[in-house]
């Protein structure tokens, strides 16, 4: 059987069997397509049906009511645009300042600016509501005491929502535009300088157009997220009667009687708008911007700027202070102080709130365990699915490719509260699948919601992986599954680990869908925090938040150490 004279044969491969085979690829492709359809299309369909159904049959009234709510629509767009402009403007500026200019402390600052990614906007919003509410806000109280002004800032307003949400979303454009700036061939800029352009002109004429795709991409990403925002406007908007789509949906569902069809109609409206934007982005950028960079290591020249660099560094520090240090410090302070006051005579510090949260508050451990379990499971499932779908998209010529590619991106355009509503309707009607009311429905919601991130990570990991590495395994006798297990998976691990960590942390923070799907047994940390907020128990809330942040950062630290080991190995 072996080639003549081949002396190395110890096994015998036997004659090649001529047989019909259903390739594992086909099974996987069909299975994944079916799974994605169930995960994404089914709840979407349920929402669409729910939006068009009122007691007594089909009706357009929910839609018309929603379209008539011009004020809320206007608020939503205003918050969306404002947040996007602030986040992309500041994020882009910081990216330029920290990636390309001789700003003092740029190394440390580059590490600090992305940190808000790991702090849920709910906490930032609550902290800022204590700092900047119109009368009782700590800032206003301090200034009233010192200067006698009645009210300096009012963050319980559209401006406050934009301020907090904008700060929270700065890391997205910062990272995407920064990657584009770093991945840029410096000779492009240099040739502009050689041909007579000033530094400013080179920036304007060469650099900025080159980072336009990343800018636009991150702008759409932020806008889509800001349109479906719930936690920030819940904290800063609802007390002032300022509603956006996310809080309107929440309120419609909480009302008695609940306006379920209207909530679904809102969701569908958001879905259509954001799906349109995502589609436009893809059409406009030919879907390049999301994938980080070429991977080529350029070292772009640092632009020498004069004294203004101190001002720019101060701006970056101001951002870090406003988005991270001040809110976290406020939470820690509130967790330790007896009650929120600026009167030093009344202030007393002890651990009673931690004691309450850790020993008395009945939800803490349950929520912690559920959050950890869900975080691990959701991140793992989303990454595994992402790798599988990415594999079909990148490696096969299957007809299902573009279907999987498109449909797995839909959740990006679906506010997670609407997704949760759809899931609720789907699984309450399928009692043979015992998912409704269990932790599984939360898992399904998280996995669906974070599927786009998993797929992006999976496909970009595979794009970096030469397909011949997999072919070589097949040619050495490995089946498709062994190839995936022994070659594809270990080699895409660094990208997947990074994606996993991000998804774990995002899952730990998820609130919008959890709040519709949880039961007392399946409550999660963010819901427990929100419960405390609704219960007005602000100090306990602060203590629980500090614990939540600690868990997040411990997880992050473990991950960073693991990654260092990986790099060293």
């Amino acid at each position, binding site marked *: 059987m072996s*080639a*003549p004279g081949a002396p*190395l044969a110890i096994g015998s491969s036997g*004659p*090649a069997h*001529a*047989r019909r085979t259903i390739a594992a690829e086909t099974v996987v492709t069909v299975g994944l397509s079916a799974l994605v359809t169930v995960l994404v299309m089914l709840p979407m369909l349920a929402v669409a049906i729910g939006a068009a159904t009122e007691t007594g049959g089909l009706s357009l009234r929910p839609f018309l009511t929603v379209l008539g709510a011009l004020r809320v629509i206007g608020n939503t767009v205003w918050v969306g645009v404002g947040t996007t402009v602030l986040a992309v403007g500041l994020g882009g500026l910081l990216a330029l300042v920290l990636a390309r200019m001789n700003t003092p402390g740029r190394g440390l600052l580059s590490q600090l600016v992305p940190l808000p990614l790991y702090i849920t906007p709910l906490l930032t919003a609550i902290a800022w509501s204590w700092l900047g509410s119109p009368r009782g806000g700590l800032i206003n109280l301090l200034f009233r005491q010192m200067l006698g002004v009645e009210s300096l800032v009012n963050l319980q307003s559209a401006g406050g929502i934009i301020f907090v949400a904008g700060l929270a979303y700065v890391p997205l454009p910062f990272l995407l535009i920064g990657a584009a700036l770093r991945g840029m061939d410096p000779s492009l800029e240099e040739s502009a300088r050689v041909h007579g352009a000033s530094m400013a002109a080179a920036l304007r004429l060469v650099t900025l157009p080159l980072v336009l795709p990343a800018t636009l991409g991150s702008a759409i990403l932020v806008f889509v997220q800001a349109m479906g925002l719930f936690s920030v406007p819940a904290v800063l908007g609802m007390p002032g009667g300022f509603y956006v789509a996310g809080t309107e949906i929440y309120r419609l569902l909480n009302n008695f009687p609940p306006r379920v069809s209207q909530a679904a109609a809102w969701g569908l409206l958001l879905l259509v708008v954001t799906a349109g934007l995502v589609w436009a982005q893809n059409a406009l950028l030919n879907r390049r911007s999301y994938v980080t960079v070429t991977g080529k290591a350029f070292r772009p020249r640092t632009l020498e700027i004069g004294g203004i660099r101190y001002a720019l560094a101060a701006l970056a520090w101001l951002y870090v202070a406003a988005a991270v240090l001040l809110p976290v410090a406020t939470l820690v302070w509130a967790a330790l102080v007896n009650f929120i006051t600026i009167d030093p005579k009344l202030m007393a510090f002890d651990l009673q709130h931690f004691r309450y949260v850790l020993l008395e508050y009945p939800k803490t451990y349950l929520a912690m365990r559920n959050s950890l379990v869900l975080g691990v499971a959701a991140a793992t499932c989303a990454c595994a699915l992402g790798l599988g779908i990415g594999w079909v998209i990148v490696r096969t010529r299957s007809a299902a490719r573009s279907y999987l590619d498109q449909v797995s991106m839909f959740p990006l355009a679906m506010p997670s509260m609407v997704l949760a509503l759809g899931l609720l309707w789907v699984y309450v009607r399928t009692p043979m699948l015992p998912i409704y009311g269990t932790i599984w429905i939360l898992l399904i919601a998280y996995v669906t919601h974070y599927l786009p991130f998993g797929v992006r990570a999976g496909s970009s990991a595979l794009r970096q992986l030469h397909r011949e590495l997999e*072919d070589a395994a*097949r040619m050495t006798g490995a089946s498709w599954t*062994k190839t995936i297990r022994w070659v594809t998976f270990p080699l895409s691990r660094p990208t997947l680990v990074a994606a996993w960590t991000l998804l774990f942390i995002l899952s730990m923070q998820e609130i919008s869908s959890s709040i519709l799907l949880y039961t007392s047994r399946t409550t999660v940390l963010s819901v427990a925090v929100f419960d405390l907020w609704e219960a007005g128990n602000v100090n306990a809330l602060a203590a629980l938040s500090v614990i939540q942040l600690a868990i997040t950062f411990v997880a992050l630290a473990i991950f960073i150490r693991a990654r260092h080991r990986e790099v060293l190995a």
Partner: protein
Amino acid sequence: MSSGGDFLSVERLEVGYGTVRAVRGVDVAVSKGEHVTLLGPSGCGKTTTLRAIAGLETPSSGRIVVEGAPVFDAARGVNTPPEKRGFSMVFQSYAIWPHMTVAENVGFGFRVRGIGRAQARPAVERALSLVALSDFADRPASQLSGGQQQRVALARAIAYDTKVVLLDEPLSNLDAQLRIAMRTELSELRRRLGFTAIYVTHDQEEAFALSDRIIVMRAGLIEQQGTPIEIHHAPRTRFVASFLGMTNILDAEIRALAGAKGMAEARLAGDIVLRARDPHANGAAATAGAVGFRPVDVRIEAGVPGPQGGIAGIVTRSLFLGDLAQYHIRSGPIEICAHDRPRAGLTEGAQVSWHVDPENCLVLRE
């Protein structure tokens, strides 16, 4: 080498994706122990053909038969997965798994078949010693140089029992010097082990040095096949000739010479007449075609042509290349390129006389 019948045969193979038809009906027969090279420029379908044989591409029609049993048959819906075909492959990118050691790479074929490390060791060590990498067994594969990775890929391909080794441009990522060294090593290895090989390259020298038989491909079809000497000596078409570096290819009117079998007279533009060999003559009368000859086969004399003949020309450009000089010579409407020893006086504008031995001048078809 062709004794023993067809060990592997590819019949009417077509591969297409979408609207692109990369391979448009290719027949290849390989005998046991034979080294067959698919040669052609990029995009000619040679790699696709190889990958279809490997099972890494699914053809749209045709058959692939190994030892009488089809591993692919579009008509009967047979498609054996790559790992069940019993081939091995060396890739252009080497495809060495960076997360494994050298020995783990080479022993992978044993591992996937559930053969223990200890049991596989002799074969792995043998394969590594054959490529002179025994000392590197426990190195992480990612720390090897390009040439070393290439050898690991080779060792991996021959470590486990294999029917055919498929090689996809294995040397193209190496620098020139290393390429020549590896070429020699590869040829030596095959001489010792005698495995059957299908080799894909766009480098004619590699093809000549390694192959028993060369198949020249163009646009998804086979253009010509034969031994290296046949191909080199008698390219059939203008495409093959130019791909093999016959720089001088001139349109001509061809007329068979009565009495001299396999010889023809070629009338070029400007009424210049050359005598040429026509190994693929089929007895047809005068046709429009071309003749081709290599620059090294052009003989040059200074001055106007003497009584013994030769074609008058003027040097339009001369380039000094070291051992050789390259002369561009214009004779009326035609221009040719000649390689000869550098000679004083053959500067631009100089009058020369040139000729090509009929044995070295070939009639080419379209």
